[in-house]
Every structure is written in C-alpha cells, then in structure tokens.
C-alpha cells in the first residue's frame, strides 16, 4: 500500500484493494469480491442507518469492483443519496459512481436530475462543476431534456465563474451531440460566438469546441466567428513564448487553442474580407516560418506541440486549396519531415502528403518526393508507416510515374505484411488498369500480381483482367501467350489456373500455330492442374475443355475421353457431374455448326465501373478515393455509385408482400398486414413471411418511374409509370423467364384504400397464359383522390418567392424534419437526379449554402392541390442529411418526410 494517500484516505478501501492485489488466482479474487459484496449488501440493508462516510466508502468499493470488470446490480440508490449530501467529498464520489455506472433506469434518472438541478442552482461553483461534469459524462437524452435550456443561460451569464463557463460549454456540446434537436442556441448564438474574445484562455479553449461543432451544423448562423478566430489566432501566433504564461506549453504559445482555431476555420471557405484573409495568410506564413527556426527546447513535447500547430495549419491550407504558394511551401515542409528521425513525423508527413497529392497546385510538388517515399516503403521498420507510404504512392500516381510505382508496389508485395496485402493488391490492380497505355503491360502486371500474391487476389481482380482481355482484341494473343507461359510453373496459384483456363478456352487458337503451344499441349498443361483445384475451378476448366473441342476439333477425342472417365461423369459433385455429362453429350451429338454457335467467343462486356475500384471504396469508405480519381471516372462516363440503382439480383428470393402492389398467382389476396400503407402486393411465392426486399424495391420508385419491381428465377415484373396532375398510368410487365408456359396465370392487383391516401385504380385482366420467354403487359389507370407523392408537379420559383412561401408555412404541424444517416451515395449528381425523379422542381441559387438542395412542387389530387417545399442539407463529412419539408397540408409533410428519408 502506498504511504501517501491524499485528501481523505479511505482506509477500508485501501485494505480491500490490497487484498484483491494479493489474490493469487482469479478464483481467489472472485471469492474475495463476493465476500465484500455480501458485506456491503448487508450494510446497505441493515437496520442501522449508515453515516455518510461509510456510504461513500462502500459506494467507492462497488465502483472499484465494477471497474475490475464485475457486474454490480445494487448500490445505485445509495450513490444517488450521496449526491444530495452537503459534504463535497461524498457528493463527488456519488457523482463519480453515477457517471461510470448509470443505466437508463428512469426512476433513478429522475432522482439524479433532481440532485443535479439543486447543485446547478446552488451558485456554489465547485458543486455546479460537479453537476455539469456528471451531465457531460452521462449525456443521456433525459438529461438533455432536463437541462438543455438551462445550460446556455449559465454559459453566457455575466456573473458565472470562468471554471463553470468552461464546464458549461463542453457540457452543452455533449448534449448537442446526443440530442441536437433539444439544444436551441437561437438568441444565445452571438454571445456564444463572442466567447472567442474572452480574456480567460481556458474559457476560449473550452468554448471553441462548442462553437466548432455548432458551426459545422449551422455555418451561416455562426459565420461571424471567422474574423474573431483569425484575430485571436493572430494574437497567439505573434506573441512571444512567455506572454501567455501557463498557456504556453514547452515554449509553444497555446498549442491547443491554436489548433482548435485552425480547425474552426476549416469549417468555412477562405474569408471574403480581404483584410481578414490577409491577416490569416500572414498567420499561416508565420507558422510555416517558425517550423524552420531552431527549436527552443530539445524536449519532444516542444516539437510535438509546435508541429501539431504546423500540421493543423497545413490542413487548413489544403482545405482552402487556393493558395498555390502556401501549398507548395507546405509540401516542401512535409518533404523535410519525410526524412526526419522521429517516426511520428514521418508517419504524419506521409499521411498529410496524401491529401496534398490530390490538389492540382501541389500534385507535381508531391511527385518530386517519389524516391524518398519508395525508400520508406522498403526500409521503414514500422508497418503502419509502410502502409502510409503505400497510400501516398497510390495517391501520387499518374501516367508519368505509373510504371515505376506499380513496379515498386509489386516488388514490395513479395515481402509485404499480411495485414495490408489485400489492399495493396487492389491498389496495384487499379493503378495498372487506370494508367495502362499498352495493355500487354496491364496483363503482365495482373499476372505478376497473381503469381506473387495469389491468395490475396480477389475475384474482382481476376474477373476484371478477363473482362479487359475480352473487350480488347489487340491484347488477346499476348494474354494467351503469357498465361500459357505462366502456367508452365510447377506450382502456380489457382487463380492463375482460372485466368489461364478462361483465356486459353477463348483465345488458345491465337497461339496454337506454334508447335510448342499446340492445342494438345495447351490442353495437357491445363489438365495437369485439374486435380489440384477446387470445385469451382474444375467447373471452369470443364467449360474451357468444351470450348477447346470447338476451337480444335483434333482434341475432341482426348477431351471426350477425359469427360467420359468415372471421376468426371460420376463425380459426387452435382455441378461437375452435370457439366461432364452435358458437355460430353453436346460434343457427341451436335453438328460443328451448332457447336460453333453454342461455344462462340464471348461477346464484349458492357463498359462499366471497374469492379475493383468499387471494392476498394467499399473497403475504405468513400473518403478513400482521391479527388482526381473521382474526376477521372466522371470523365470516362463511369457511374460511380450506381449501386443503389442496380437491378435486383436474379437470385433474389420471392417475397410475398409489399406496400404498393399485390400480385399473387392463383391464390386470392389475403388481408393487408396491419399498418401496411396503401396498396398491397403479393408476389409469386409460397406465401412465406413478409420479406423486406420487395418493399425496398418499392421505395426505389419514389424517385424513379421505371425499373424492375420484382424478379426471381421464374418471373420478372417490370414497372413503368407516368403521371400527369392527379392521373397516373402504370404499366406492369410480366416476363416469363422459364422455357415453359405459365397456365392459368392470374394477377390480382388490389388497391387498399387507406384513410388519407386514396387512389382509384382500374385494371384490365390479363391473359391467363404466358408463353415461355414471353412478356405480357397490364395497364393500370390510377386517379389520385387525395395526396400521393408520385403526383408531383414541379413549380419553378425565384429565391424571394421561395422564402416568402417558406415563411407562410411556418406552423409547426406544417413542417416535418428528419436527420438521418446517408444510405446511398452522397454524390451531387445522383442526389439531383433523385430529386428531379421525384417530380419536384430543383431550385438553384435559393439556398445560401450551395451544398444544399431546395425543391418545390405541387401534389395534384382530384379535389385539391398541396404545395410542398423541400430542403435537403447533406453533410458529407458526417454522412448525414437533414431533410425539411413544409407543405400546405399537415399530414403530407410528415408522410413525405418519412418516405423520402429512405431515398438518400
């Protein structure tokens, strides 16, 4: 036990802790704890009222036991009692227990909130701080409800002590993060912003975190903070290291505050006011200059603090991306760090340069460091630094250095850590494809990739090389020759066999003239790998063999022999057996013409987004792809994030019911599930439980007017719809995907009339027969009696009209708002297309923030028109949206808001 125990030592606690430490085994520890728990329980239950000290001590012991990782299911009440003790020490332990162990037991929360309320109004700063710390530590919604309106008052009141202000600012921030809807700054905004001018540096340091967060969410309301932040920063940057007394940290003036100021400025574009901007540029230059000065101390804390500011300044420079001079200086500074002896600095410099590489102003400057970065990839001892080096090489790659970078990455792969191999493979594959000038280089690279790191080459990568080879006839001969050579290796990776099988099956004829790669040699080579491969690869090889029979009639006998042997034709795997049987039969009975048609060369694949790029994005999140890359893809016309709109998987299981339309073959339609919206659709199934997939398909059509509504192996249902005012026409296409006839085919389209959503639907019955492979059409005429979102008519209006109408619709029930996480791409073009697809007019230049979207439209129904205004505010950083709707009819806002929130 340590001799020193400050404050009020709780001897009983110290003894208990020593006992636990002396336990020789886990069992002994548990035994000791159980003994203690029994003791505490009996004390708490005992008749004798416990004094404050004992209560505090036992609560503290419980806390210790909990922190050891054991469950605690009592003592909460005693802790709550401590909160209202007027002894500071007891109160403090009570609050600590609550902060660590609170659960959402509503009864307790009420009591806790009561105690907090008392302390907040006590005007005793120490008590107030304790209460604020507790709110910030727990940060629950109940607490936000109770205190969100009180805390801003404390924060800006003139007579509040500095320490309380600091706690209040951060406490409010915490509540804002849990329940932004409850924290309304409104009237306090300007006084909160002016905390940036507070004399007390601690108050500024705390308040700026709050201001930064609020600015991110409401940049307009807080934009006056920019000039205040610049002048505060400028005062700090130009101050001598002793001016700020205790806020100087190892000779660096106020590093925390400086970084936070620079971070706040990153919420805004460069200042428009020339004087403010000039002052800021001066600050940034001073920071860059200071980095060149000799250090004032040898301590690592000094250089860390100084460089923390430097990196934050560089982040701001990159964020502005408008000052070529500063960008290049930043790049040179980072270049120096690349060779620094501190690993941390090398790591951060590599990381920071990745973002510089995507700026057009500094891309070239970054490229000059290529040798250093390659060297880092080869020699760094720490894998996380090597990973950053690989990232940077990827980011700085362009046509001019692609060959060098790809070669370096390939050679690094031979020894790369397992943890980063898969990502490296993807990156090499992407760069090779993106910057391929001659495709033989591309093929070489990918085959090398498979040779070096075959296990990490995912399907996407080898599918892609096949797609490219099939689409480009200038590389086919080379590809055939190269895989043939690669397959000569005694041990080659299964992925190589797959690529080899596919390519030789398609293009083996291109190298068959050479006796060293005659058809039979090719076949024998492939077949020598057969027995070592997994079932899917064998299946692929069997297909390659039947293609060989078509390409080279002279191999027919040999291959038939192989197919005929028991291990193929009686294989226990159904797929392999089936292929063997069918191919054998096909080769024996089909004429050469038929064979040639069936086994024709694969047609080119439709051009689309590189599947590997999609995979990398999926792996790393949307931020992983550099700006240049995104632009490149747009130029090439590739749709980047089409994932959400892709047709349903052909293998999708039949799902019985959905909101919009109900179709079921033969069986009558049952009653709609309770609360299931408007129309019921039941789709072709054995009436399994309601699966969400068709419903999801339905929601796709909120912003789209045609597509596939449902698809399984037997049936595809397409939908196409058009709307004018309150009338709509919907075409349903039923495609029979099988080769047999569907008899007594019947579709019931049933409209269930909901109380507010009313549609008149008229249908014509369809023919009861659907021939195999045929498609029939059914027309539905729809009349909208009340409101329904597809009956939108766009309304164009000017900015002031919009705001005037927006204000007119200010009753609370007319507005509906929802904040939600993005489910799909946040790409501007995709969003625009969706909003237009909805039928509203997209209004430009209305919202002061160009990131936001503003739309207007009218819903036409038979009896009335409902005007709707919409505002969508994407926050790309948080991957969130805020959607606000104001409609002239109350229920519409809410319904539309819910419906649309699922679309983005």
């Amino acid at each position, binding site marked *: 036990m340590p001799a020193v125990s400050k404050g009020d030592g709780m001897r009983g606690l110290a*003894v208990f802790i020593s006992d636990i430490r002396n336990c020789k085994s886990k069992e002994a520890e548990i035994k000791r704890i159980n003994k203690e728990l029994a003791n505490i329980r009996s004390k708490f239950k005992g008749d004798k009222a416990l004094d404050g*000290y004992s209560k505090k001590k036992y609560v503290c012991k419980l806390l210790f036991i909990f922190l050891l990782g054991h469950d605690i299911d009592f003592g909460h009440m005693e802790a709550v009692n401590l909160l209202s003790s007027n002894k500071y020490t007891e109160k403090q332990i009570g609050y*600590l227990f609550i902060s660590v162990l609170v659960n959402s037991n509503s009864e307790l929360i009420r009591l806790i909130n009561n105690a907090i309320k008392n302390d907040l109004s006590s005007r005793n700063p120490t008590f107030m701080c304790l209460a604020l710390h507790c709110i910030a530590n727990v940060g629950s919604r109940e607490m936000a409800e109770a205190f969100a309106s009180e805390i801003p008052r404390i924060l800006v009141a003139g007579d509040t002590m500095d320490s309380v202000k600091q706690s209040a600012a951060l406490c409010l921030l915490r509540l804002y993060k849990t329940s932004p809807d409850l924290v309304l700054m409104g009237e306090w905004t300007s006084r909160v912003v002016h905390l940036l001018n507070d004399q007390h540096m601690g108050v500024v340091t705390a308040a700026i975190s709050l201001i930064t967060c609020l600015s991110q969410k409401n940049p307009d309301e807080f934009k006056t903070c920019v000039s205040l932040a610049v002048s505060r920063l400028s005062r700090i940057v130009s101050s001598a290291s002793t001016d700020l007394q205790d806020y100087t940290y190892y000779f660096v003036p106020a590093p925390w505050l400086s970084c936070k100021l620079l971070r706040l400025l990153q919420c805004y574009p460069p200042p428009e006011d020339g004087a403010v901007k000039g002052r800021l540029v001066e600050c940034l230059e001073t920071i860059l200059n200071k980095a060149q000065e000799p250090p004032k101390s040898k301590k690592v804390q000094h250089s860390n603090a100084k460089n923390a500011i430097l990196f934050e300044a560089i982040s701001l420079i990159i964020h502005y991306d408008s000052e070529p001079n500063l960008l290049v200086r930043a790049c040179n500074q980072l270049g120096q760090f690349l060779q620094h002896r501190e690993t941390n600095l090398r790591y951060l410099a590599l990381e920071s340069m990745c973002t510089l590489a995507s700026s057009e102003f500094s891309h070239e400057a970054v490229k000059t460091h290529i040798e250093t970065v390659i060297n880092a990839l080869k020699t760094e001892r720490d894998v996380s630094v090597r990973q950053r080096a690989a990232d940077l090489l990827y980011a700085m790659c362009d046509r001019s250095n692609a060959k060098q970078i790809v070669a370096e990455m390939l050679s690094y792969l031979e020894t790369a850590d397992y943890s980063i191999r898969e990502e490296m493979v993807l990156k090499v594959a992407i760069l090779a494809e993106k910057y391929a000038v001659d495709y033989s280089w591309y093929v070489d690279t990918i085959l090398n990739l498979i040779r070096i790191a075959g296990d990490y080459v995912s399907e996407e990568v080898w599918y892609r090389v096949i797609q490219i080879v099939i689409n480009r006839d200038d590389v086919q001969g080379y590809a055939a020759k190269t895989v043939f050579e690669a397959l000569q290796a005694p041990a080659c990776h299964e992925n190589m066999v797959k690529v080899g099988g596919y390519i030789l099956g398609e293009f083996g004829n291109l190298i068959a003239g050479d006796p060293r790669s005659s058809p039979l040699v090719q076949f024998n080579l492939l077949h020598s790998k057969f027995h070592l491969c997994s079932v899917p690869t064998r299946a692929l090889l069997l297909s390659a063999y039947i293609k060989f029979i078509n390409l080279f009639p002279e191999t027919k006998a040999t291959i038939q022999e192989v197919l005929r042997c028991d291990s193929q034709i009686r294989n226990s795997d159904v797929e392999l057996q089936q292929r063997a049987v069918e191919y054998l039969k096909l080769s024996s009975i089909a004429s050469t013409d038929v064979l040639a048609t069936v086994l024709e060369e694969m047609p080119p694949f439709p051009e689309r987004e590189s599947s590997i790029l999609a995979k990398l994005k999926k792996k790393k999140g949307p931020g992983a792809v550099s700006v240049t890359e995104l632009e490149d893809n747009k130029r090439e016309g590739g749709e980047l994030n089409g994932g959400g709109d892709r047709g349903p998987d052909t293998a999708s299981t039949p799902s019985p019911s959905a909101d919009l339309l109900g179709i079921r073959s033969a069986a009558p339609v049952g009653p709609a599930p309770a609360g299931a919206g408007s129309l019921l659709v039941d789709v072709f199934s054995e009436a399994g439980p309601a699966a969400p997939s068709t419903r999801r398909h339905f929601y796709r059509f909120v912003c789209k007017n045609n597509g596939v509504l449902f698809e399984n192996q037997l049936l595809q249902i397409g939908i196409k719809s058009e709307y004018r005012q309150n009338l709509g026409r919907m075409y349903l296409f039923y495609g029979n995907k099988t080769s047999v006839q569907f008899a007594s085919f019947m579709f019931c389209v049933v409209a269930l009339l909901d109380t507010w959503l009313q549609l008149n639907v008229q249908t014509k019955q369809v023919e009861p027969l659907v021939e195999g492979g045929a498609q029939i059409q059914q027309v539905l005429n729809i009349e909208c009696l009340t409101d329904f979102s597809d009956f939108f008519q766009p309304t164009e209006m000017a900015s002031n009209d919009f705001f005037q109408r927006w204000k007119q619709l200010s009753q609370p029930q007319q507005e509906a708002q929802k904040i939600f996480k993005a489910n799909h791409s946040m790409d501007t073009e995709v969003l625009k297309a969706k909003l237009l697809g909805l039928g509203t007019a997209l209004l430009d230049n209305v919202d002061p923030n160009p990131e936001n979207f503003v739309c207007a439209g009218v819903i036409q129904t038979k009896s009335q028109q409902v005007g709707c205004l919409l505002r969508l505010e994407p926050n790309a950083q948080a991957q969130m949206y805020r959607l606000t709707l104001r409609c002239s009819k109350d229920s519409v806002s809410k319904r539309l808001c819910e419906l649309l929130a699922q679309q983005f």
Partner: protein
Amino acid sequence: MMRFLLLFSRQGKLRLQKWFTPISEREKKKIIRDMTNMVLARQPRSCNFLDWKDLKIIYKRYASLYFCLAIENQENELLALEIIHRYVELLDKYFGNVCELDIIFNFEKAYFILDEFIIGGEVQETSKQIVNRSIEASDMLQEFQVGASTDTSPMSE
C-alpha cells in the same frame, strides 16, 4: 473529440478506463481487449499512432503504464500525444512522482483529475496551474469536512 482513454500495465491489466460516449459494457470489454492486444504487440520505436476502425489510436508508454487514447479521424495526433503527457504531468504533480500504484489505490482521484482536464471528450483547461489549483481546492474542502465530522470511524470495515 476523444472517444476513450485507457490506462493499462505492460501485463495488460487495466488501470483506468474513461469513455466519452455511451458504449455497452460488452463493447467496452471487446475494445479493451483489442487495445491491449494491439498496443502491447507494437515493436519499440514504432510510431505512436494506429488506425483502428474509424478512429485513430494514440498511445504512449510511461514507465510500466500504457496510455491509450482514441480520437476521431480529423483530430490532431501530435496534440493527442501531448494531452496524454499533460495528464501524466497533472498526475505527477498531484501524487508527486506518480507510479502505477498511486493510480490503483487512488483511482477515484485519477478520475477527478481527468474530469478537471477533459470534459465530454474535449480539453477543458490546459493550464497545469489552474487544474492543480482546483484539485487542491477540492482536497482542502475534503480535509476540512472530514476533520470537522467526528462521527466517522475510518477503521470500520
């Protein structure tokens, strides 16, 4: 903002845990396990930063204790290292040559000091003097009150 701070020994024994956002107990245990495994496996003289999920992990060893701080992605790594250092300084100033045992036996104090320094995952006060003064002030308050109350029997077990 900061998400959590963990202090653990070289043997992987957890000495202090502070969570700045609500997390279930199960998730906490998993994170603690991940952190100790990851950090203890690092080679000496590696850099002090790790990527973990969508967070950055900043860690540093002081004597027998590892301090491991998780920050959000856009936060400043070097400054996070200095947050750790400042906390160590605060502990050191309070305990006088702080060691692992001080934190084990006075864990509640370690929490109080942390609360004065950081609230809700953001730095509240960076001045060492001010933080120390307020900790000392509350100690004074405690001693005064404990001294004043005569009805307590510290030996009762």
